[in-house]
């Protein structure tokens, strides 16, 4: 029972990285210019690397011979535990950068806390990932400033992106039963206190970017329970196609 809770906890963290990595990989060869195309692909690869670490650990916890590949390619939509922000479509470049900025800021704070986990494996993954995320946040936050304080056109694209994606941000800080149990066991992170620090990062960047923080937005949730937006199914049908069509195909 206790292992099952940890399994689900780790799966959620792995799914966040996997789904975001898949989304970012969809920018490959479509970036606004060569250098940024490579930057997005590199961040995507960082996410796949992180997903692999979490999902490999999940298979050990599961202990029934399931592989990390099977977790990635053979679970259905309702079995994915990622935050729904991760699965939101790439949209235009501003939409992608806002999604990235929200998640980078969250994961910077989250991973810092996860390094203190009593679970050595989680602590080790967090220590490795925090370095990448520090860089990712630097990349995405500078883009938000550039776009917000850039041309009238870039400003007119980034503000709606913020307004549209804001509804998915509250989920990042929600605490379900598994989260509470993991905190009790000093394994997981209490996300509630992170909200204030996250808001501070938002305020600082939005001020410099001359952007407005949305107010009175209805918040949505459900990813950690397997309730997703319509976008995840389409993403999975693309990502899982090969393993579904040719089960157990190898390189």
């Amino acid at each position, binding site marked *: 029972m206790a292992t099952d809770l940890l399994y689900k906890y780790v799966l959620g963290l792995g799914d966040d990285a996997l789904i975001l990595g898949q989304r970012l990989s969809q920018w490959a060869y479509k970036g606004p210019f060569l*250098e940024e195309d490579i930057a997005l692909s590199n961040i995507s690869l960082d996410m796949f690397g992180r997903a692999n670490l979490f999902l490999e650990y999940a298979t050990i916890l599961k202990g029934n011979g399931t592989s990390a590949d099977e977790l990635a390619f053979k679970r259905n939509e309702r079995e994915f535990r990622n935050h729904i922000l991760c699965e939101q479509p790439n949209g235009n470049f501003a939409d992608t950068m806002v999604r990235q900025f929200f998640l980078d800021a969250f994961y910077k704070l989250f991973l810092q806390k996860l390094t203190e986990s009593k679970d050595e494996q989680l602590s080790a993954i967090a220590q490795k990932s925090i370095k990448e995320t520090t860089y990712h946040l630097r990349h995405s936050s500078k883009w938000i400033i*550039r776009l917000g304080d850039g041309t009238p056109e870039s400003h007119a694209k980034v503000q709606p992106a913020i307004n549209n994606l804001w509804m998915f941000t509250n989920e990042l800080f929600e605490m379900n039963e598994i989260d509470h149990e993991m905190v009790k066991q000093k394994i997981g992170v209490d996300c509630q206190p992170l909200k204030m620090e996250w808001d501070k990062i938002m305020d600082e960047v939005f001020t410099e970017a001359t952007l407005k923080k949305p107010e009175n937005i209805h918040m949505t949730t459900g990813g950690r329970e397997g309730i997703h937006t319509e976008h995840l199914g389409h993403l999975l049908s693309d990502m899982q196609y090969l393993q579904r069509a040719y089960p157990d195909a190898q390189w």
Partner: protein
Amino acid sequence: MSDKNLPTWEVFIQPKTGASFQHAGNLHASDKEMALQNARELYTRRKEGTCIWVVKTEDIVSSNPEDQASFFDPADDKVYRYPTFFKVSKKAKGL
């Protein structure tokens, strides 16, 4: 934004602490921070260095190829400008 607007930057990487910076290549970027980040993405993903310099290509002053003769040829007949011109005492170690 269009890549037509982005200026080019030259990238210099220091392979290890104390070593000279070496020209690695160039890239497009709109500002210093983007140039630094793009340099990191393009030239240091495999731990190639300890420090990066970026400088706008237009800020580099270059000699003209036409000046090649007057700039470089005079060294040819002054062999003493090369360290190999001088005999090294066998007693001098660590040179």
